[in-house]
């Protein structure tokens, strides 16, 4: 049975000071919208990349899971749940759909909560960072409707010599400020390369899956403000059928696809389309695509 979206939610409150707080707020709202209790979540996957204080351990998912209230202590709950971080930039949420689908198919999970949140490690805005401090959550389960839900997730990696974007802590340079500093470098030709690569992969995916691009809602990530429009132009998709995140100044990064889809459904923009094509692209270069049928 295909994997379907049960509910989505986002977190944009500027008073929330970090990736864990944003992801937790979105996760809680997502479960409430679905009418699902935290003890019904079997698997929680966090696809956020940039962490509070540049934390490397434990998985941020464990801290988020604690805030959500899922399997705090098995000796008391008696109901197990697993969480982990899965990191692949904006593409991570579609990799999480792949992983969630496998756990749902094998009967190892009934509900999988995929959360995301990125933030500057200092907890303060930084104009050079380029990523928005927001969070998102998407609750997945199986659907009995064979014609609905996510289709195959297609992924591709570029063979180019440079990854386009690198994000790292230069520990030699930051001294005792390692919890507050992060370096994100973007190549000058990043946007052009990314649009070209993503368009080629999306077109290849659509052809392989038999998708008519004139009938889809394009849900695109937002590595640059013009990415979605340029991608749509290359694919011949009309502007009204293009969805990207509105009202957020910087790149929502790992939250971008969930965020864009959430807005499209909330505003009614998605209602006219029987299917959506999710396309994420980012560092590597990496691209991930998936069709989603039964948008509502």
């Amino acid at each position, binding site marked *: 049975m295909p994997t379907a979206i049960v509910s989505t939610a986002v977190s944009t409150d500027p008073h929330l000071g970090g990736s864990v707080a944003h992801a937790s707020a979105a996760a809680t709202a997502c479960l409430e919208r679905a009418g699902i209790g935290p003890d019904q979540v079997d698997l929680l996957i966090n696809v956020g990349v940039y962490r509070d204080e540049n934390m490397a351990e434990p998985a941020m998912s464990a801290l988020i899971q604690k805030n959500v209230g899922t399997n705090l202590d098995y000796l008391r709950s008696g109901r197990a749940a697993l969480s982990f971080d899965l990191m692949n930039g904006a593409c991570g949420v579609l990799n999480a759909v792949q992983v969630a689908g496998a756990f749902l198919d094998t009967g190892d999970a009934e509900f999988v909560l995929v959360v995301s949140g990125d933030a500057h490690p200092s907890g303060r805005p930084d104009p050079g960072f380029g990523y928005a401090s927001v969070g998102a959550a998407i609750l997945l389960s199986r659907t009995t409707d064979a014609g609905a839900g996510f289709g195959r997730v297609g992924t591709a990696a570029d063979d180019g010599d440079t990854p386009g974007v*690198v994000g790292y802590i230069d520990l030699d340079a930051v001294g005792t400020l390692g919890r507050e500093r992060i370096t994100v470098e973007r190549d000058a030709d990043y946007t052009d390369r990314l649009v070209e690569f993503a368009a080629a992969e999306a077109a290849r995916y659509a052809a392989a899956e038999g998708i008519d691009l004139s009938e889809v809602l394009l849900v695109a990530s937002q590595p640059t403000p013009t990415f979605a429009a340029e991608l749509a132009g290359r694919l011949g998709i009309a502007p009204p059928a293009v969805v990207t995140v509105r009202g957020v100044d910087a790149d929502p990064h790992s939250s971008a696809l969930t965020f864009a889809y959430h807005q499209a459904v909330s505003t009614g923009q998605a209602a006219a389309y029987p299917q959506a094509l999710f396309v994420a692209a980012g560092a590597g270069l990496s691209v991930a695509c998936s069709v989603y049928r039964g948008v509502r």
Partner: protein
Amino acid sequence: MIHTRFESVGAYLPTAVVTTRDLVAQMSYQPPFDLQSITGIAERRVHDKRPETFEDSFVLARRAAEDCLSRSRYAAADLDVIISTSITRFKDGDDFHFEPSFAHQLARALGARRAIHFDVSNACAGMMTGVAILDRMIKAGNIRNGIVVSGERITAIAETAVKEIGEVYDPQFGSLTVGDSGAAVIVDESTSEADRIHYVELMTCSEYSHLCIGKPSDRNQGIALYTDNHQMHKEERSRLWTRFQSDFLAKRGSSFAAEDYDYVIHHQVGSKFIRNFNGHGEAAFGTPMPESLSVVEKYGNTSTTSHFLVLHDHLRKAGARAGAKYLFVPAASGVVTGCVSATISSLEV
């Protein structure tokens, strides 16, 4: 029904050895106890620090993956998935990377051009989490094979601890137990009971997620790990494993004794920790523990790679034995625990 197996296992260990006595001698604060006798760790491997041959997490991971592929039926180009699970994400010296994913960069370095790639972070349970993901993806029919790889230049936290430990209950004492390494494992479909993963069951009990935190130090350059050892290693925490495994086996109509494991491999925190876990297991399951395999004395706690370093070491010394059944017990910040069982008859290292 599709089953899975460990198709190949690889490891890489740096050649430089640092003894616990030498490490403690570098500390400005001298502990009032013998760290070696408490932990059972005599020495650990430490990455090559010479600029021309520097070994960072990425290099350690790549060498382990190359070792794993050298005995696999698969070439890198045949891999459907590559999952990198390093906690320490050092690349290009002291740069600690967040993107692009380590998995993407490893895929490029190895030549796994068409593989689905992503990183997984789940503290010391990272590799087991990667195995759980591959196990489910293969069983769901989505992929045919995949590799989980991890390189850990984790002695970076020991370097910080040596400088900063200032009292007997310091939260960085555990950082002195770690060692550097790389490990990799390929999982694919099993067609014979002689080589089969029976289950990969993991859980996170998030109440205790704050007890062990790894992040950059704010007192010195570098990364540090802060552990509330008293709370982290309370007996109640070890009951999470035994209760979870008991309940899981009961649902399968089985029991620890009925599983008839030949070997148990615990997370390699220290020899006393392993002894305590076995003692607790024996009491909770009401049956003797199988032979407990360990490398903690010579490699220390290598974090994500520990179970597979033990397996690799065991297979190298003793060779694979037909029908041998292993139980792997993860224990990680989060806290993550669980039970992983496999019969391994024909893995060569």
